């Protein structure tokens, strides 16, 4: 008994010492990724492709100036940038930070979950973000999302748009399992498009913020992204039950509701962005299974995918300053 206790105590001390040593080492090393503010010289004033640099976790301006704030997801338009961060620790929390063009922090909101999608309306007045909530999914293998909308003109924040009255196929719809994600705003700063999922199906939903209502337009549309002219929606369509490659990028013409697949044949799990009126940008898993790369593909279904930034995600084309 004595000997056994001695062995146990010795082992406990060794294991405890080893763990403590590693923790201290990790602390010294700087742990995971620290939250870093943008360098003073880093602004949105220079037009070009901005993205998140995987190596540093910071926002970069292509090619290669990664002096922006650290974000997990990033989007910018008009005079505003939106940065989603993961706050340290568990349970997961997402901090949505609003910046002006000089990356001065204007406002920040903390919601539960893991950062997932970020969008700013073209004017910069409306912001939306989605967090992937862990722990409240009620069917194994699926996840649940929470989407927030912030109106900077009024300061009004909807932490979860789940309660918006929803019409599915023309009938008022009530269900506890509705999930929204991937908002894309129209130019009028009132209408928006998003994905709603319920009963195991996904729909394209058109929402009206002022009227506070939403209706489904079409099934099997995820992560819509409205073109700058407001006529087309790029989205990921589920084309396969293979969990390794379920989606393919498509573009939907809103006028006739006709859709066509894009030249990108790999499965894209991202909310695409319009880099201009004819080109889409998106992230794909990087070579060797690590990180992501930014790619682009023509929106008309022709051409071929092109690698824009190795080791990047959250691409966004920033225009010159409005005035």
């Amino acid at each position, binding site marked *: 008994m004595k000997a056994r206790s001695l062995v146990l105590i010795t082992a406990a001390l060794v294991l405890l010492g080893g763990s403590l040593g*590693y923790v201290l080492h990790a602390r010294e090393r700087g742990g*995971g990724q620290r939250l870093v503010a943008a360098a003073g010289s880093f602004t949105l004033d220079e037009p070009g492709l901005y993205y998140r640099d995987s190596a540093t976790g910071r926002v970069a301006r292509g090619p290669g100036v990664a002096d922006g704030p650290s974000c997990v997801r990033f989007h910018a338009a008009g005079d505003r940038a939106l940065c989603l961060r993961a706050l340290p620790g568990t349970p997961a929390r997402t901090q949505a930070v609003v910046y002006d063009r000089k990356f001065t922090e204007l406002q920040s909101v903390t919601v539960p979950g893991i950062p997932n999608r970020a969008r700013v309306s073209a004017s910069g007045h409306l912001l939306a973000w989605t967090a992937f909530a862990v722990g409240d999914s009620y069917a194994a293998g699926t996840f649940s999302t929470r989407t927030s909308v912030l109106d900077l003109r009024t300061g009004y924040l909807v932490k979860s748009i789940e309660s918006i009255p929803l019409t599915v196929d023309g009938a008022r719809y009530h269900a506890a399992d509705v999930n929204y994600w991937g908002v894309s705003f129209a130019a009028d700063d009132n209408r928006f498009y998003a994905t709603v999922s319920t009963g195991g199906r996904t729909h394209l939903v058109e929402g009206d913020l002022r009227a506070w209502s939403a209706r489904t337009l079409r099934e099997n549309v995820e992560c819509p992204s409205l073109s700058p002219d407001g006529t087309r929606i790029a989205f990921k369509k589920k084309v396969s039950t293979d969990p390794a490659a379920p989606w393919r990028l498509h573009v939907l013409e809103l006028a006739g509701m006709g859709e066509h697949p894009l030249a990108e044949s790999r499965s894209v799990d991202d909310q695409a962005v319009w880099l201009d009126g004819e080109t889409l940008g998106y992230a794909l898993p990087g070579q060797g299974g*690590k990180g992501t790369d930014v790619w682009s593909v023509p929106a008309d279904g022709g051409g071929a995918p092109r690698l824009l930034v190795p080791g990047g995600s959250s691409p966004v084309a920033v225009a010159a300053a409005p005035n």
Partner: protein
Amino acid sequence: MYLATTGRRPDAPSRPAGAGRRVPGTVVALGAVSLVTDVSSEMVTAVLPLYLVLGLGLSPLQFGFLDGLFNGATALVRLLGGKLADRGGGRHRTVAGVGYLLSALSRLGLLLAGGAAAGIAAALAADRLGKGVRTAPRDAMISLSAPPEELGRAFGVHRAMDTTGALLGPLVAFVVLWATADAYDAVFVVSFATGLFGVLVLVLFVPAGARPAVGVKPVADVKPAVGVKPVADVKPAVGVKPRPAGGRTGERGRTGKKPRALGDPVFRRVVTAAVLLGAATIGDSFLYLLLQRGLDLPALLFPLLPLGAAACYLLLAVPAGRIADRSGRRTPFLWGHGALLAAYLVVMAPPGWPATVLVLVLLGVFYAATDGVLMALAGPVLPLDGRASGLAVLQTGQALARLVGAAGFGAAWTWWGPRPALAAAALALAAALVAARRILPERPEREVS
């Protein structure tokens, strides 16, 4: 000795049955192993989604896929673990130890895999494999090391310690993440060290070989003493009721012929009842979701709901086990499911904090009165050298039934909406309860009268 502790002696300090006796050292040691191991595994569970989605940039879908990938396989591995533990007799500790070690090593796998998805999948598979393999031999060891009339309390003590570990794990993970600014690798290292410590406790403090309760001599004695034959003075009160079949436990074990657990009519009835009730169980997360929606609970507080239920379970596990020892395990097992039924009904009532607290308490009662109690109920029914595989069959049957129940409820929720689905679930559970009351043998383990 036995009579003295049941309170027949009026001058004795008024203690509930069994209180005067200490829980067998093996049970406490196994509880300590479970506590330490659960700290190790729950700290990884708490950070895994963060690590995979944030640290490695996996999409939520990929994460869900990885997470769900091995859950089904666990059930089959458990059967295998039970079989291996029973073969040759007294291999419980070895099989359980391999399971614990495998899970501990899987943390190193996570660490070494870096970002490679295949490596992570392999590490997660090793963890699930370890979890599946060790459960049945561990419960068999508990049921073999405590006298049958105290099994309820023994399992209660074990489950309380186990739950303590599960509650501590996320806390430790939080501290490590906080101290290191989100270094997930540090969490894996601490979890590995903790897991290894658990294996060490098992090796040092849990005697090898399945032994009859309170028996002093190990393996060699198992064969002759196969009949549930604990200490001499306990025996008359607790002896296994002679079955018409002729001494279910001893004889078959002695002949060396492999006993088929499901061949025993009494055990079959226990499994049937557990499966029936399991299939009428909807899964706690549904209840938590309904509570959250009803209360409009801030999402940040959502993780506290399961914590509340676990805390109740922790507090009630030992008392429930004691009650089970005194009243017979059938009664608390049925009442526990009654508590679950009550929880369904309360969730349907107008939402509010009292209702929420009540539901959490009822869930705690449900687990306290059923989880360990079922093992205590089934253990003595099974022959010594078929106990691990028998318990594995029971656990797997129950787990699969619950899976079916949750899936069915999910479908009902989708088609009918939450309230009608809940009403249907309550009806199903009530029906299952009535049936289980008939099916479950009155005195499966030959209770003290």
